[in-house]
Each structure stands twice: as C-alpha cells, then as structure tokens.
C-alpha cells in the first residue's frame, strides 16, 4: 500500500514537472539539431544554428536592443517605484490609500490594453514608435511591480535609523540616498532583476510600440512567420538562458544575503 502511494506520488510529480518543463526541454534540445527541421528524430548535437543566430545581424541587433530596453527601463521603473514607496511610507499624503491603489492598479490591467492605450496616446501626441516608446511601455508595466516590492520592504523599524541619520545632521536627500536606499538594497535589487526579466521577454507592448528597431521577442515572432526552423529554437534558448541566469543571480545575491541577516 505504502509502495503504491509513493509510486502515485512519483508519477504525479513526474507528470507535473514534465508538463511544466518538457516544452522548454524540447525547445532547447532541438536547438542543437544538426538537420534543417526541429522535429524528431534528433540528430546532433550541433552548434550550427547558434552560429547562424550570432551571424544574423538582425537577431544580434534585436538582442542588444532588448538588453538596452530591459536594463534602462528597469532602472527607471525601480527609481520611480522607490520614490513612490518612500513617499507613501514616510509622509502623510492626501488620499494615500487611493494613491497606493492607483500606483499598483496597472498590475491588473492586461498588457494588450496598456499597449493599445500607449499606442493611441503616442499617435495623438505625435511621438514616433521607437525603442524609446517600448521602454516607456515597460516602465509603465514594471513601476507598479517595483513599487509593490520595495514598499513591502519599508517598515517601522527603519524609522529610528532614519531619525538617527537626521539627528546626526543628514538632510532629507542624504537620509534617502545614504541610509534608506542602501538599507532597502535587497528589495531594490530584487525589483530590478525581476523587472529586467519581465521586460526581456515582453512581446505585446514591444510589438505594438516598436517600428524599425525591434526587441528580440518581436524579431523571433517575425522569424516564426517564415516557418519552424532550429534557428528559432536556438534564439529561444538564448532568451531562456538569459532569464535563468538573471533569476539565479537574483537568488544568490539577494535572497541568500537576506537570509543571512
């Protein structure tokens, strides 16, 4: 009976993890395909398609664009999120409950709606679509996230520490930059990395708001239109690898350190 139970548990877990990870495994596996089609049988391994990806100027340009948009827009989102969180946690503001709700509200709105709204707004104002508009779109979706993460880290126990800094002669600006922000560093870094991963593989907003210079997900999408090809697997694997590395870095630098304290 016990054996049967544990067999059931193992089967269940195998199915669960298979369901989650099998698509990724297949994607990565067939990126090493030697032949021209990403379908069984697997004959490889070969790095042929990776070489093609990095030889393709449009793909490498898109990759660099994606990185730029992710790194810069996340920085801006983090800064805005931190400032909003600090203000709402430390000062008595009119309607602070409403303001908090307003800042986090975009988390519940679909990216499609946000993208369409921004597209129409930019059209009306006369801002041409570019990487800048994509970046703005990513700031819009990531600021609420950064705000929520950082706001959760600000607590009453830091009030006296900030007070001590003020007592020793620090100005408001010095308190914020020399004391509050460093104390919240784990939360800020976590928000930043999470925001980078979200921006890195975001498609809808990037698709709607870009024109000539596109980000990697948009470029992959246009590749897909010409049919399945191990090259798409290879570039998809690169995207996946970068996301994984980001999450690992986050895990090692932030959460380990937070646990040690």
């Amino acid at each position, binding site marked *: 009976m016990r054996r049967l139970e544990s067999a059931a548990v193992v089967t269940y877990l195998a199915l669960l993890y298979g369901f989650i990870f099998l698509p990724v495994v297949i994607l990565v596996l067939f990126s090493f395909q030697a032949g021209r089609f990403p379908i069984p049988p697997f004959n490889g391994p070969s790095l042929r398609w990776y070489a093609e990806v990095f030889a393709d100027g449009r793909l490498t340009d898109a990759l660099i664009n994606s990185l730029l948009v992710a790194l810069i827009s996340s920085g801006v989102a983090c800064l805005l999120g931190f400032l909003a969180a600090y203000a709402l946690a430390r000062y008595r503001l009119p309607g602070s409950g409403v303001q908090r709700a307003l800042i986090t509200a975009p988390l519940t709105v679909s990216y499609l709606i946000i993208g369409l709204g921004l597209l129409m707004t930019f059209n009306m104002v006369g801002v041409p679509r570019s990487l800048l508009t994509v970046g703005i779109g990513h700031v819009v979706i990531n600021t609420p996230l950064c705000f929520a993460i950082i706001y959760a880290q600000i607590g009453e*126990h830091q009030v*006296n*520490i900030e*007070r*001590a*800094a*003020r*007592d*020793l*002669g*620090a*100005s408001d600006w*010095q308190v914020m930059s020399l*004391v509050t922000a*460093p*104390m919240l*560093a784990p939360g800020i870094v976590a928000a930043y990395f999470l925001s980078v991963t979200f921006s890195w593989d975001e498609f809808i907003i990037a698709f709607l708001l870009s024109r000539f210079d596109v980000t990697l997900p948009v470029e992959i999408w246009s590749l897909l239109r010409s049919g399945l090809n191990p090259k798409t697997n290879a570039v998809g694997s690169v995207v996946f690898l970068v996301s994984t590395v980001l999450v690992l870095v986050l895990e090692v630098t932030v959460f380990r350190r937070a646990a040690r*304290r």
Partner: protein
Amino acid sequence: MTAQVEFRNVTQRFGSTLALDDINLTIGAGDFAVLLGPSGCGKTTLLMILGGFLTPNEGRVLIGDSDVTERPARERPTTTMFQDYALFPHMSLGANVGFGLRMRGIGRVERDARARELLDLVGLGDTAKRMPHELSGGQRQRVALARALAVEPDVLLLDEPLGALDLKLRRRMQDELKQIQRRVGTTFVHVTHDQEEAMAIADRIIVMNQGMIEDEGEPEAIYLRPRTVFAAGFMGEINFLPGRVEASRENQLQLSTSLGELSLPRSAAPRFDPRAGAAVQICVRPEHFTVAAGAGWLELGSARVVDESFFGTHHRCHLAPERDPARTLVAHLPQSMRVAKGDAVALRIDPASVVVLPAADSPSPAHDSHGSDEV
C-alpha cells in the same frame, strides 16, 4: 561641549490627550539628568521635543542661550541614543561612528581617526571594520553611544538605552555611562522607567507622571524627602499610613493614625503647611522600621509577621500591626535577625525618617512601582 537646557511652559497634545502639561524645567550644563516615570507619563515626548523630532503645541525650548523650538533635529546641538540603537546596518562601525562628521563635511582621514578614538572611549577599539550585525546588544549600544558623541553635541539624549540589556550588563553599562559622562562633560538627558537605574546614574532625577513633573532633585532628596505621594511610591517601596493632623506647632506635628498618636518634627512635612484637621499620608520606607529600641523613636506597638523572605541584605516581611490588624506593612528587618512567620515583633521608627504628605492626591499602589521591569 555642554549647555544648559530649559523648557518653558511646554505643552503637547496628541489628539485629545494631554501628553505634556505646561512643563517648566531647567537642566544645568554638564548634568546627568534622568527623566523618570511610568510608560505614558510624557518623558519620551519631552525628550523628542528636546531632540527636535517633535514641535510642541505651546512653549519654548532653549539650549544654552538660543531658542531652538522651531529648529529641526539636524540643526540642533543635540544627538540621541535610541532605544533600539538605530545603527546603520549597511555601514561598518567606523562609518557609523563617523557618519555625523561626514555630514559636517569632515574628510575621511580625520573622520576615521576620530571614529577610532571614540570606539576606544567606549571600549571597542579595533572594531572599526566590523558590521553592526556581528555585535552583541551591549556592543551595539556602545557603538550608538560613540556615534552620538562623535559630533561633540552640547546635549546627549538617551531614550531608554539600557532597556534591552540583561540586568548584569545593564548595571555595568550604567557605571560606564556615568564615567563617560564625567569624562566628556556633556549634558546627558536620560529617559527611563527604572528607578534603580535613575538612582545609579543621575545627578538629578525628574519624576514625571501624566504629563507633569511630580518631583525633581538629587536622587537622595527624592528618595528620602519626596514631594508627592506619586514620587514617594515610584522611587521605591514605601508604606503609606493615612492620618489626620491634630495639632501643628512651630517645630512639632501631632498626628492621629490607626497605629496611635504620632509626634513628628515639623521638618517631616517640609513642602506643605499642615493645618489641624488636614488629612495626610504618612510615608515610611520599609528599611526605616526597626525592632530595636532607641531614644526618641516612635513606638507603633507590636506586629505579627505574616510573611517573610530573605533577600540577602535583609529580611523582607509583611507585618500586621496589633493596633490595626487589617493593615499590612512592608518592613525590611536586619539580616542578622531571626524572624519566622507568626512571630511578634516590636515596631519602631525614627521620626526623622518619616515624611508627611498631603492626602489630596490618592496614593498610588504602594508596592506596584517597585517592580522596575514594566514596559
């Protein structure tokens, strides 16, 4: 560096609660002053007002000759040592101690030298590179002290800094605080609810209750000659015996109590004018009861020992006097005496040790305030 502190008619309200009620207080330059009182008495509020973290609704605050009422904390010649130490967790001890100097634009080399000097002063030399989380509570506390002293404030504020330490460490830190205060000469204003701590460190104690100052003076004066029933009860265990003034003469006071007629010197009631017929509280510290006969001592009849426990330095006894068996008195009887439950002892007091206070304000529970570990 040191300065006098003065509060003039300081009133603070929080909503409908009156946290401070028209406080007038002067603390001399270089004094170690302790604001003592139960939680909610307004002592911390007064400290926050002095530190510049709170602007009072009414009144002025002066440090030295300058009115600082409107000045924010960063512009005041005060620094604070917080109850939870409030060290900067992301900075080394050296950077913590040097922070105030950094804010004053002093260069790194000078800052580091001064930080090392102060860490030495508090007995933590050679720790400048360590981080706050590597330290014990007592060590953190020393760092907080060093950090507050590094900028050479005129007045150092201490907000129950010893509250989180265990008893033994607390005693040691009290001695050290006092020594350091003597050495630097800065005015210290220290808040606590522990009357033993107050007596151990203070040059002057200010007893507060419900937003008002009940008593102030040297520890000995407040303990032996309290001005109010509250101060008498808060400074340590005491027996309150209600009585009535029968006659008040130039140097003698005739009182009637349930333990009989008492004749006390007029100096037993130094701070008010007892008229015949007035209701009074007669205050006797437990250690002032004695069983041995002495010339001029008041006889209170015999009493039965209800309860006894040995405290090392004395026997602490609950006594039921024969003349008023419903009343329980607490007495500290000599270490060498043999006392057992049920024994009958003779009760006597030296009239010079007795204090008579007006009964207008009802006595606080006499024994409650002795336990100093309330939060």
